[in-house]
C-alpha cells in the first residue's frame, strides 16, 4: 500500500466537509418551502442504492487482498451479508453474519 500524500488527504477532508455540508444545507436552507421537480426527486431517490453497489461490486469480484484473484470466502461472505440484509432489514445482523461467514470460510479453507 503506497502512502498517501498528506496535502491530498487534507484537500479531500476539507473538500468533503464543505461539499457534504452544502449538500445538507442546500434544500433546507436555500430552497425553503418551494417545491422541487418530481423528476429530480425521482433520480435522487436511487443515488444510494446505485452508487454503493457500484462501489462494492468490483471489490467483491476482484478483491485487493488477493491481488484481484476471485476468492470463495469473500464472495460467500458478500452473498450472506447482502441476503441477510434483504431478509431481516437489520444492518448489524447482516454485518455479523457476513463477518462470521468470512472468518469461518477463511479458517476452514486455510
Amino acid at each position, binding site marked *: 500500500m503506497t502512502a498517501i500524500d498528506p496535502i491530498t488527504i487534507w484537500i479531500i*477532508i476539507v473538500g468533503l466537509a464543505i461539499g*457534504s455540508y452544502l449538500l*445538507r444545507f442546500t434544500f433546507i436552507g436555500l430552497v425553503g418551502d418551494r417545491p422541487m421537480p418530481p423528476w429530480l426527486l425521482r433520480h435522487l431517490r436511487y*443515488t444510494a442504492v*446505485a*452508487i454503493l*453497489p457500484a462501489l462494492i461490486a468490483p471489490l467483491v469480484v476482484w478483491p485487493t487482498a488477493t491481488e484481484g484473484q476471485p476468492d470463495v470466502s469473500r464472495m460467500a461472505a458478500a452473498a450472506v451479508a447482502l441476503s441477510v440484509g434483504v431478509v431481516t432489514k437489520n444492518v448489524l445482523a447482516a454485518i455479523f453474519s457476513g463477518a462470521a461467514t468470512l472468518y469461518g470460510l477463511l479458517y476452514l479453507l486455510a
Partner: protein
Amino acid sequence: MAAATSKSYFWKGFRDGTPFVFVAVPFGLLFGVFATEAGLDIIQTMAFSATVFAGAAQFTALQLLQDNTPTVIVLISALAVNLRVAMYSASLTPYLGAAPLWQRALGAYLIVDQSYACSIVRFEKEPDMTVQQRMIYFVGSVTPITPLWILGTYLGAVLGTQIPESWALDFALPITFLSMIGPMMRTLAHVVAALVAIVVALLTVTVPFNLGLLIAGAAGMMAGAQAELMLERTKT
C-alpha cells in the same frame, strides 16, 4: 409549559435515536481502523469523521485514495455517495423549512441516515407538531449518535495499527456496505437500480480514474427512476 413540552420532545427524539448507537459505534470503529490502515494519522482521521460526518462517503473517499484516483474524482465520487443527504434535506424541508435560518444552518450539519429516519417517521405520525418541536425532536434524535460516532472513530484509529492482516479487514468495507444495501431494497425499482449499477460497474472497471463508478451510479439512478415510472403506469 412550552419549555416542558420542548424538553419532552428532545427526550422523545433521544429515545428514538438511541438504538442507532449500535450502528454508529461499530461503524465509527471500522472507519478509524480503515483510515489508520490507509495511512491517515489520528488528527486527519478525527477531522474527517467530525467535519464530514458521513460514514459511507468517508469510506468511499479512502478506498479511492488507495487506488491512486485523482483528487477531483475522489471528491465527486464521495459526494455522489452522499447525495442522499441532499435528498433527506429536501424531504425534511416541508417540516423544518420555516425554522429560523441559524437553526436550519445548524440542523443541516446533523442530517444523517439515523436522524432523518427517526424524524420523518415522527413528523408524519404527528402532523400537529410545531416547527420548534420538530427541530428539538430532530436534534434529540441525533444527540446519542454524534459523540459516540466520534468516540468510535477515535478508538478505531488507536487500535487500528495493532490489528493483524489475518483478520481480513480489507473486506470489512464491502461487508458493511452490502449490509447497508440489503435493507434499502424496499421496492422493485430499488432492486433494478442496484442491479444495473452492479452490471455497469463490473463492465466499466477498466475505465481510467475510477470513472466507472460515476457512470455506473448514473446508470443505476436512471434505471431506478425509469423502473419507478413503469411500475406506476402498470399499477393504474
